[in-house]
């Protein structure tokens, strides 16, 4: 998840990133931001937050638990906005998308 500081919503995006770090992938036990599952958060539509994200596999049995977690934390953090999820498969998630912190937690380093 990349945050550009010249983006007018950079502050909200940063706040959203911190919130999304509370959502843990139950199988891997690492938060979804460090796993690289969140591709972007869009605040440009008034009253809404659109999270563009993926899952580690299209057959992820924990998929709806992760989605529910995303909606829960964003509702708590931004009570005046309605969060929704845009689940995408392009680009396909791969191990290189995991952050250094995530790799360390997964013993991948």
């Amino acid at each position, binding site marked *: 998840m990349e945050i550009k500081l010249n983006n007018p919503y950079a502050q909200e995006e940063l706040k959203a990133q911190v*919130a999304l770090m*509370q*959502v*843990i992938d*139950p*199988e*891997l*036990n690492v938060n979804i931001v460090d796993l690289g599952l969140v591709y972007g958060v869009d605040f440009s539509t008034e009253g809404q937050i659109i999270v563009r994200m993926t*899952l*580690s*596999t*299209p*057959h*992820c*049995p*924990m*998929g*709806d*638990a*992760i*989605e*529910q*977690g*995303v909606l*829960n*934390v964003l509702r*708590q953090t931004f009570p005046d906005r309605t969060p*929704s*999820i*845009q*689940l*995408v498969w392009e680009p396909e998630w791969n*191990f290189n998308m*995991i952050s250094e912190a995530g790799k360390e937690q*997964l*013993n*991948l380093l």
Partner: protein
Amino acid sequence: MADIFVNKAPKELAVIPFYATAAVFFLLLSLLLCFSARELTGHYFNPHILAIVHTAALGWGTMIIFGAAYQLLPVICEQELFSTRLAFLSYLLLTAGSIGLIVCFWIFDTGWAMIVSGSAVVLSSYLYAFNIYKTANDTNRSQIHQNFLLISAFWLCFTTTVGLLLTINLSYNFIPRNHLDILKLHAHAGIAGWFLQLICGVGAKLIPMFLLGKSKRNWLLHTALILQNLGLIAFLADGYFNPMHVRMYFYALLVFLGTLCWLLYIIDAYRHRARKKADTLMRHTLISLVAQGLAFGVIPIMLSNHQTKWTALYGTLIFLGWITGIILGKTFKTLPFIVWNKRYKNLNGTAKIPMPKHLYNENLIQYQYYAYIGTIVLTCLGIVVDHRLTIQTAAILWIVIALVYGYNVFRIVFHKTTIDYGNKAE
């Protein structure tokens, strides 16, 4: 797009009863082993051995595989399970049928009770196959894993049907062939058709998923499926009309080569894995695969040497080595997730909640792993040297493993939601 995968997890009723009941059957299996330790190396057509084998094959192996398949097929097919009610009905029939058959074999009552129990198992297998077929059939995507599951379900129905005919044949002799020869075909349809192909299909999906590994060599899985079925069909066809012959080596070799292709796929996924360190549960799987390889190695000895202990060793490696090994590992990779999903899915992100791996005692898994290795080695050693005390000791250790495993399974099943909002837990 998000709704494609939402709510595809099956209902608890279609999964949890199978896991819980299988844990009880595992304990029963180890108790029966303990009571019959001195008979283990004798001829397999013995009431107690038949009861033990059916406890292992139906109450333990098939029971847990039904539950796992009902849990995993919707994930593989991206499709909801066709019917939870049918799944639960298959559970009731399998449980009743297994108990009936085990009791009937143990006391060797070959009358109506055995036939009715066998019929319940047959009906259960048909319901399972129908549910699997309807779930897989509703999806547009056709994957090799689905084919493994569907074909293995066919072999299950074949195995249970032949088994029922054999039970009827015990009371009303009507099969024109030798009962023991047909028994071998029944057993191998179950081992190489049902268990092997099911485990290959599910393993090809789950093992790379747990290792964070990938293999692009799907052709290996296709080849595995073809070779395993070719070998099995040829064995059954030849074995029905002719006595055991040197050709059986060739059929076993075909099945072995098929399994080798599957193993090469797994090795390729293992090589391309991100998670370098395999956890204890994955190491369970490794031991299980070693037992499977050894079982293949025993086949030539069994065919050329008529000492019954080799058949006992083969059966032990199959049921207590390969199948039990994979179940002991995979249970805690699957069961906690369905319970967690039910208890915590909607709370994710709102409070500090336990993760699926916190639903069972991880330390016990370590003990279970080492105890399992020691016990399977001791059991095989006891059989090879035909030493009653060694087998008896191993049987007692199986009871300990079953208790440890059962404790963890029931700890997960009866887990109560615990939420930590910071200072206080609810």
